């Protein structure tokens, strides 16, 4: 019995007592190592942040530039509108393709009879939809018919990728998407100033497309904005109402407990399960159309609600009791106290919670996949009931296409989304700083 006590005491002594200077040094060394482990962990976390942003910006900056051809186009009246009309219906039947192509041939000093094979290779320098740009130009400037004008049209996606260096010159010609002949032409066009890189407005102007150069984010941005609006309109009033009830009115009983447990759990339910709910309830039972902003907005509202409720409750709780009691003492009803005093004072917190919820909803992808927002939508939706996509879903769809032009656009779209998110987070930071509570 006594021997065991002794050994334990010895063990303790040998562990904790600095009997030896060398022992102390060892302990300090392990102290130092422990600290360094911590610092290294922090740095690992930060370096991943850094690597991720760098990788995305590195891959994505070029999406904001696009190869364009400045063509001198002769808009021959005989070919366009012999009868002098210049409305959309007339212009729709005009073969702008051949006009545009001829201009390109001239620019390269190739005219007369070209072999069909050469022609085909030349035509592949132009975007497939470039003739629409000339048509739009003519529609906007009817007076240009009969003159020679400079029109800027999109180059083909491969030309763009070549100029950005993602199709390398070192690859043998037969394996490259752009052959040696075309490389020669491209060099010629660049040196004559015809082929230039310009800011890529198309990224914000176009909808879905199978060609990278005419694929844009407009439908996705509009869809995301629609869904954000629905979330704001529904989640904020509902969330604030629920939070106010739970904080100020609810009796302490098992029903309230159930509600609270539910809210905390919903905040942690995998987002994809909300997608299943949306599919089964909103689409199959309520009969709302698939792939639309309204279903997406409703699902995102349900997901954001717990966040808004939790944040609002915290900020209502932070309002001191004395303010409520003062109002009640002046004869205000509980409801009046809430609406006239407590809620206005809690507003900054409510706003912060709402924006955090919105950021979360903006980046949420999985539930939107379930309700069919993965659609190829070319036209911008003008109502909530038309097919649409969302920014993160567009990223997902582009991420799955193999073409180099789409990889770059995926990263570009990610940058756009991150800019939105950073912008919203900045608002949160400003709100927090400006309205930091004074009590």
């Amino acid at each position, binding site marked *: 019995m006594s021997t065991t006590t002794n050994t334990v005491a010895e063990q303790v002594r040998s562990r*904790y007592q600095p009997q030896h200077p060398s022992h102390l040094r060892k*302990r300090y060394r*392990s*102290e130092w190592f*422990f*600290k360094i482990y*911590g*610092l290294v*962990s*922090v740095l690992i*976390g*930060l370096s*991943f*942040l850094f*690597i*991720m942003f760098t*990788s*995305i910006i590195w*891959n994505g900056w070029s999406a904001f530039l696009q190869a364009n051809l400045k063509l001198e186009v002769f808009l021959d009246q005989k070919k366009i509108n012999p009868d002098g009309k210049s409305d959309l219906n007339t212009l729709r039947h005009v073969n702008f393709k051949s006009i545009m192509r001829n201009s390109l041939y001239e620019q390269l000093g190739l005219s007369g009879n070209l072999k069909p094979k050469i022609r085909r290779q030349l035509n592949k320098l132009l975007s497939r939809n470039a003739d629409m740009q000339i048509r739009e130009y003519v529609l906007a400037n009817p007076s240009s018919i009969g003159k020679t004008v400079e029109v800027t049209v999109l180059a083909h996606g491969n030309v763009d990728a070549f100029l950005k260096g993602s199709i390398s010159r070192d690859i043998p010609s037969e394996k490259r998407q752009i052959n040696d002949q075309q490389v020669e032409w491209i060099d010629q066009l660049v040196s004559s100033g015809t082929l230039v890189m310009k800011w890529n407005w198309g990224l914000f102007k176009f909808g879905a497309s199978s060609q990278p150069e005419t694929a844009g984010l407009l439908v996705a941005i509009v869809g995301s904005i629609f869904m954000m609006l629905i979330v704001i309109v529904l989640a904020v009033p*509902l969330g604030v*109402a*629920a939070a106010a009830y739970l904080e100020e*009115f609810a009796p302490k009983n098992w029903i309230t407990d159930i*509600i609270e447990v*539910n809210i*905390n*759990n*919903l905040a*942690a*339910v*995998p*987002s*994809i*399960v909300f997608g*299943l*709910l949306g599919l*089964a*309830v909103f689409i*199959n*039972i*309520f*009969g709302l159309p698939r792939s639309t902003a309204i279903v997406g907005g409703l699902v995102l509202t349900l997901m954001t609600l717990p966040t808004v409720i939790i944040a609002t409750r915290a900020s209502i709780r932070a309002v001191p009791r004395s303010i409520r009691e003062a109002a009640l003492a002046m004869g205000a009803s509980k*409801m009046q106290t809430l609406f006239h005093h407590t809620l206005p004072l809690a507003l900054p917190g409510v706003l912060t919670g709402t924006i955090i919820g919105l950021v979360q909803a*903006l*980046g*949420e*992808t*999985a539930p939107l*996949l*379930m309700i069919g927002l*993965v659609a190829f939508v070319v036209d911008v939706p003008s109502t909530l009931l038309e097919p649409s996509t969302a920014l*993160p879903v567009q*990223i997902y769809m582009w*991420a*799955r296409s193999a073409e180099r032009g789409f990889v770059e656009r*995926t*990263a570009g779209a*990610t940058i756009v989304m991150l800019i939105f*998110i950073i912008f919203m*987070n900045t608002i949160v930071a400003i709100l927090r700083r400006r309205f930091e509570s004074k009590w």
Partner: protein
Amino acid sequence: MLFIVLGLVVAGLIAFIVGVARIKIATNINPTIKMHSRVGYYGTYSLIWTTVPALIVTLLWSSISPHTINMVVKADIMKSAPQLTKAEHTLIMGHASLLAERILALNLQKNEILLSAQRSMATAGELFQFLKKEGVVFGGLPQPHVISAALNLVVLKEQSLWFITSIASVLSLVGFLYAFIRVRPRMQARNSVEAVVLAGFIFASMIAVLTTFGIVASVVFETVEFFNHVSLDNFFLGTTWDPRFTSADLNRGEGQFGFLPLLWGTLYITFVSLLFAVPIGLHTAVYLSEYASTRFRNVVKPLLEILAGIPTIVYGFFALITFGPFLRDTGAILGFDITSTSVLSAGMVMGIMIIPFVSSLSDDIISAVPQSLREGSYGLGATKSETIRRIILPAALPGIVGAVLLAASRAIGETMIVVLAAGIAANLTINPLEPVTTITVKIVSQLTGDLEFNSPQTLVAFALGLTLFMMTLILNIYALYIVRKYKEQYD
């Protein structure tokens, strides 16, 4: 629908003004009676009676009517064509609703179409000719029954709209009159208005419960449907995942819906991510809460929070284009054969996502350990790291376990990272350099694409979803319980 709501809004505004006017006139006539509430409450009282009942009925009706109409039409199809199979009925129904949408979109003199449809003694061919003349676009002569079902749909939809419009107007009018009679100076308008607002509050807080209920009900319903097609042990004990997508395969026996490879993949990736994230996250939390200067902390914490706020699709894309290929190339140099969608790369990227989650939760928990414990330890001569390792971490252990469980539940339910960064094939492998797939990946792949709702191939997604929901629910409840217990301990 929209115009009913707009009409109710206008009616509500009018009712508000009328209510206010009425109470003012009443007090002007007899100034000796004191009003119970402020003027606005009488207006609001009138507004509530005019709009709220009508609005509730409208919303209820418009949420059930599409389903009911479909049921009615479907029953009709079954009655008129009992010889066809269930799948064919569904097909006819699908075509009919498309056609009905096209007819409604035409927006021509609806009465004419309605009348001709109600006189539906006309044969399918005649109706077809009639609709074609009116400008409905057909891809070809539709199957028999489609046209009549479509017209049936159109008629019912029109009738339903008429019905709800008239009900809403009647309700609104009755409510308005009731309020008009009730509004008197002695009436306790504020109490009534506040009671309604409170009811609204209670409804809003019930939505969370309704959502949970909706999730469970809808998912369970479809899951039961799934298990009508596929046996329980095929799903829960099967080791092969091969759902056979095309309906042409239907008569070649049922597909294999083995759940185990998916479960294994999910748990494996989660395990790798925790293995990566927990040490880093924990050390980060310890460093930030015990060692770092306030300035360092103020800079680093928000930066780590950015990491937590980045949408997971961005992590997935990062894994797809940067991290996966990087691991593959590094492996190639070292002589390992790593596929770019390996368990390792998906797990590590998921780990990056979880780091801030683990660190901020453990940070809270470590801060909750009472200062007296630290000081006691320092007083005995322990160094800082000894205090942390021998005193603080053991004291915080339950809380940290809770945090890790919460992180695990998050990793299990995470979708976008694994959809882009993990494999498609359901492998039962313990090699971390090979790809596996997860539950969430399979839910996505079974439900995107063309939906044919009654096949086990799509229904399986709901069975998977239910399993996922239960797994995360149990983890969450248990973790929250531990964390709460732990916090109580030191309160």
